[in-house]
């Protein structure tokens, strides 16, 4: 793994090459000396794979961008090479009312990072986009973390992410409460 951070990757802000999500029309690359082709939608792709021998695996032409991300996971064993991260957006690219709304913490989907270069390592005011979960390969990260979100900030992001991803925690919480109650009421005590 190229990225280095003494405190682990979770919460670290790193620059990464982030590919955009492929969307229709899908441009397919067929080699150096071939013209790329285009398929209008996923259904056409599926039909050609089913009936015309199109290989299900293709090289897609998608754009990517070098940008800072917040990593959400540690990889102490280095065996899983892709790391889940959240993309950020620069506030100055938004109209003033939208910027104010984010600064005033009225946007649960956009976690505000004020300009604190010593902490976040960014010279622009940013917001973490909770709707922009990305996977970044370890080799697509620049070597050094520039900043870090603290444990409290990561906890807030984690709580919000559960909601944004429509994850149902109720059964898990109910089980944990049951286990705790059992511990408290057992003759041996907690």
């Amino acid at each position, binding site marked *: 793994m190229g990225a280095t951070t003494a405190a682990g990757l979770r919460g670290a802000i790193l620059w990464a090459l982030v590919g955009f999500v492929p969307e229709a029309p899908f441009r397919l690359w067929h080699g150096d000396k071939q013209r790329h082709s285009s398929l209008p939608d996923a259904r056409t792709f599926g039909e050609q794979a089913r009936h015309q021998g199109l290989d299900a695996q293709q090289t897609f032409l998608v754009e990517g961008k070098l940008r800072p991300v917040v990593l959400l996971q540690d990889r102490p064993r280095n065996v899983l090479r892709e790391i889940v991260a959240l993309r950020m957006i620069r506030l100055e690219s*938004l109209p003033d009312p939208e910027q104010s709304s984010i600064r005033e913490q009225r946007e649960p989907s*956009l976690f505000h990072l004020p300009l604190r270069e010593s902490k976040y390592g960014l010279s*622009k005011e940013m917001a973490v986009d909770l709707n922009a979960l990305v996977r970044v390969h370890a080799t697509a990260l*620049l070597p*050094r973390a520039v900043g870090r979100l603290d444990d409290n900030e990561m906890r807030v992001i984690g709580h919000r992410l559960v909601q944004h991803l429509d994850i149902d925690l109720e059964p898990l919480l109910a089980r944990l409460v049951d286990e705790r109650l059992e511990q408290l009421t057992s003759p041996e005590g907690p």
Partner: protein
Amino acid sequence: MRVKQVQANETRLPEPEAGEAIVVSKYGDGDDRRKAVILHPDDFDLFERYRRIFAAREPYEMRVSDVAVVAHELAERGGDEPDLDLDSLDRALR
């Protein structure tokens, strides 16, 4: 949701267009406290359909704000950072 029928000749209501919600504020409270929201019947049907589909588990996307959508779309197209933050990038390359 419990639906209560009221005849049009028994009440005076503004007529919302499809895609428009008319928020009725409590008198004297400015626009801070809502008393009622009037929807076009098509939008109410849509709302009821969503409720039937998603029941108690409403997808979070239903609550995502316009600001969040604007910001997300901008970054999704790469339009949020027209120039590189060179100082930060230098730190990353050190």
